[in-house]
């Protein structure tokens, strides 16, 4: 039972990262793809009708995590207190940037201010999310009751009294930043025309080299910080398909980008994100929050809720998700096609 819910949470998290990832990514490359006011308005319009739905995946994932693994929710959210509250503030700023920009469409001071807020919040969010994942991989100083608290930074090392930020988690943040930037640029290439389309493709072309570089670097760093992550791979060799898929998705992205097949390149960066996350999750299982002292680690077994709750939710959850996917199909179909510069809503 806990295995099913572990996979459901992982699935929802991957959906969140791929979906909100492209609109956060669009924010990261906002200024590179949109060079003037009208073009930046077009960037916002590509994500305008969908970003809110994408962000709902975060809330829905949080909700499932809450009832399925209450102890994990309690421990992780209170331990990552400061960065999580800052993420909330960034989400507020970013939403304001997207939605308030077009309220005074012809006031340049207004639109340029919100462009800046939107882009800055997107950049910081990508780094925070990456650093959060880095913390989970590195492990946190859980006590015997399963709680911890980390300040934002301490001595920047990965042992002893760790902080949220150290060299490893910052590296994870950089990986997330580059990966989402490329993912967002792929999305914008798919949704825009002419010069914006070419610029977005160019961002992908250049960003690809950075992405390959930081991906390799981060994998090496993971093996140094948490060598046990590979245990599951040795135990279940089919898992090696995941790193292979990471490599394949990178190669495919380069190929499709060079060919100008934006949609396929976007799918490739989506697969890349899914496989990177999937690889980490596969290596960590059954841990959900490793402790620096392994005896205190949180696992799917010691954080799960009661049997009845988990089985009854298996009845309503699939219904809800199938209906939600229905809305999504309808929404994306209604707003399909490219966004034109200078068009009104």
């Amino acid at each position: 039972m806990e295995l099913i819910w572990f996979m459901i949470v992982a699935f929802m998290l991957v959906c969140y990262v791929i979906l909100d990832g492209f609109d956060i990514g669009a924010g990261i490359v906002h200024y590179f793809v949109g060079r003037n006011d009208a073009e930046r308005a077009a960037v916002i319009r590509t994500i305008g009708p969908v970003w809110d739905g994408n962000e709902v995946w975060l809330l829905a994932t949080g909700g499932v995590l809450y009832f399925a693994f209450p102890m994990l929710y309690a421990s992780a959210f209170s331990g990552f207190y400061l960065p999580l509250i800052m993420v909330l503030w960034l989400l507020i700023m970013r939403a304001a940037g997207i939605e308030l920009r077009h309220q005074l469409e012809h006031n340049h001071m207004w639109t340029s201010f919100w462009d800046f807020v939107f882009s800055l919040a997107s950049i910081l969010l990508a780094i925070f999310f990456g650093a959060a994942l880095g913390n989970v991989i590195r492990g946190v100083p859980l006590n015997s009751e399963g709680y911890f608290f980390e300040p934002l930074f301490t001595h920047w090392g990965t042992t002893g009294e760790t902080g949220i930020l150290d060299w490893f988690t910052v590296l994870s943040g950089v990986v997330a930043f580059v990966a989402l930037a490329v993912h967002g640029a792929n999305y914008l290439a798919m949704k825009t025309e002419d010069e914006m389309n070419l610029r977005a493709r160019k961002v992908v072309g250049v960003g690809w080299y950075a992405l390959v570089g930081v991906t390799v670097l981060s994998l090496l760093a993971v093996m140094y910080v948490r060598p046990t992550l590979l245990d599951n791979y040795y135990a279940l060799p089919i898992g090696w398909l995941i790193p292979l898929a990471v490599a394949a998705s990178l190669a495919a992205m380069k190929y499709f980008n060079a060919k100008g097949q934006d949609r396929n390149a976007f799918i490739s960066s989506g697969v890349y994100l899914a496989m990177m996350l999937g690889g980490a999750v596969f290596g960590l299982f059954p841990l959900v929050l490793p402790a620096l002292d392994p005896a205190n680690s949180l696992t799917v077994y010691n954080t799960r809720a009661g049997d009845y709750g988990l089985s009854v939710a298996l009845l309503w959850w699939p219904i809800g998700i199938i209906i939600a996917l229905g809305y999504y199909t309808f929404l994306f179909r209604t707003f399909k096609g490219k966004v034109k510069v200078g068009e009104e809503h």
Partner: protein
Amino acid sequence: MESLTLDRLQFAFTVTYHYLFPQLTMGLAPLIVIFKSLAIWKKDEMWNEAARFWGKIFGITFLFGVVTGIPMEFQFGTNWAVFSKYAGGVIGQTLAMEGTFAFFLESSFIGLFLFGEKRLGQALHWLSAFLIFVGTWLSGWFIIATNAWMQHPVGYEVAADGSVHLTSFWSLVLNEWAVYQYMHNMGGALVTGSFAVAALGAFYILSKQQVEFGKMFVKAGVIAGCLASIWMLFPSGDWQGKMVAKHQPVTLAAMEGLFDTTEGAPLVLIGQPDMEKKRLDNAIHIPAALSFITYQRWDARVKGLNEFPEDQHPDNIPLLYYSFHIMVGLGTIFIAIMVIAAIWLWRGWLFESNWLLWILMLLFPFPFIANTVGWMTAELGRQPWLVYGLFRTEEGASHMVSSGNVMFTLLGFFGMYTVLSLLYIFLMLRRIEHGAEELTAAAAAVGGEN
């Protein structure tokens, strides 16, 4: 200040601020559906324009509701970790259902409603308005069900590790307390929405900016506002009160400022609780009325605070008492004004009665106050428990998060929400001003076609 106080302050502040927005969107959503229906049914472009106009106000308010709502779900984990570990297996269900069944629905169709009218056509545009209404009201249900479980826990068992496990899904989702609380709460949202529509209509008439639409708004707002105001007292307020009397008698005593058990207890209209001398000063009351409305007998015995051990008393009785009395006082005034306005509307006097239009215009902030103090009554009344009778508030906070860190984020929220308030007020004033021009243009276009 110690962490617990700061944790409570932060939750109270962020949830109070948050709920200013959803009460308006949940109140406006059914009215927009009505406007849209009238437009299609009567083939009247004026009502369509009214739906678009309120749709834009809905859109901005919805955004503020979303961004201030995300911190609520997060804070269960960040600030109330011990409570989350204890009760997450139960209340996480309803919160997850809100995300899955309500948020996906709302977030998909808000974009379609605001930006997709041309692509969708009228029938599908109506449908998206309707589904937004369903989504916002479903969301309300799941939150009420969550709160209702904390007010009146059902369908659970205490597991070996001391946490609660769900044992009955339907008891949680269809909690008796949730049914009455929902009816009372959604009526409150309708009061906020309809009073806002009436107030803006009155403003447009009085300022002579847009009289035609002003009259439509006042008419719609007064009819809906009159029904909703009466609903708040009877039957929904009455039902809610009986639930409190049955399941939280100590809360009832505190709300009423009843210190001693009394047969034929009076209903207090005004007065100041004196916690040192354990009595109500300067009380003006209706004799025996509390006994009657609670138990339908004039001489029924109502338990006072003295019947209950002090460690079960709500920890802020005066604030609870005032919250409740402000809610009831405002509710009574709402009914009086709206009934008069409805009669004046029916007799055809309303649009010439500037004094009444002034009152309707100035009335719009008060439903926000009434809803806020209503929720304060529910939440202060639940104290000292987080889960009534099971789990005390003081046990629930995250003990690893130091008070300095909580103060940091609390001050951050103060700053963030001050900026949000300024933005919201600015955007609303602008929308009201530009809205009048757009409505004038629309009225001219409709007139030109005829």
